[in-house]
């Protein structure tokens, strides 16, 4: 299927739904590649707090990077999702990969394992 769409209106900030119908985040960033002399292409979408920080103000990247390196789970700065994994676009963006295959739920797993699961009653 081929059709045109607008990157800001139809893709940026939309919810990402994985292959198991779980929300895995939002399209925080979009990456375009520019081949020498060739037509630019949208190649992937990204999830990540650092991207949001840069969108607010570029100077926030350093403190955000420092926080990621010193606190919380060890994880990639950004979750990179290649365009070929986008199956359907509508109000939400549906993917053919599972959130568990990516670092999208790194914070969720870390908080659950380290803190929340240890509190009585957290599993019922």
């Amino acid at each position, binding site marked *: 299927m081929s059709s045109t769409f607008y*990157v800001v209106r139809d893709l940026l900030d939309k919810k990402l739904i994985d292959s198991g119908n779980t929300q895995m985040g939002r399209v925080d960033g*979009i*990456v375009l590649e520019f081949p020498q002399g060739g037509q630019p292409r949208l190649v992937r979408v990204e999830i990540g707090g650092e991207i949001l920080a840069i969108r607010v103000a570029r100077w926030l990247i350093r403190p955000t990077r420092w926080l990621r390196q010193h606190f919380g789970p060890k994880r990639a700065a950004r979750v990179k999702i290649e365009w070929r994994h986008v199956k359907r676009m509508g109000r939400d963006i549906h993917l053919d990969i599972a959130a568990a295959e990516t670092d999208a739920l790194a914070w969720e797993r870390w908080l659950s394992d380290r803190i929340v699961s240890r509190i009585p009653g957290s599993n019922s």
Partner: protein
Amino acid sequence: MRELNLYELLGRKVCDANDEYAGCIEEIEVERGDEKCAVKCYLVAHRGLIARITSWAIADSLQKAIPVSEKSLPYRVPWNQMDLTVTEHPRITVAQAELRKARSEG
């Protein structure tokens, strides 16, 4: 092969071939593909602050009801007429007159 994030492009001020200010990159239209999406054109808007805030805030149905001057409609700059060699200073490779002509025809 160079890669750029969308946030590095959006909002950048754009000049035309005569070094005249043409607007800011506000949107990118792409052709959807299975592996990648090809960029068709960049929407460069030469709008005042009021117009930008209102288009941001007003629903599409209301926007259509408000008459806008042709001057405030965005330029549709085909991908091959946008020079992004220096990301911080994008340049349109034609004069604005040509873009205005294309806008009124299209």
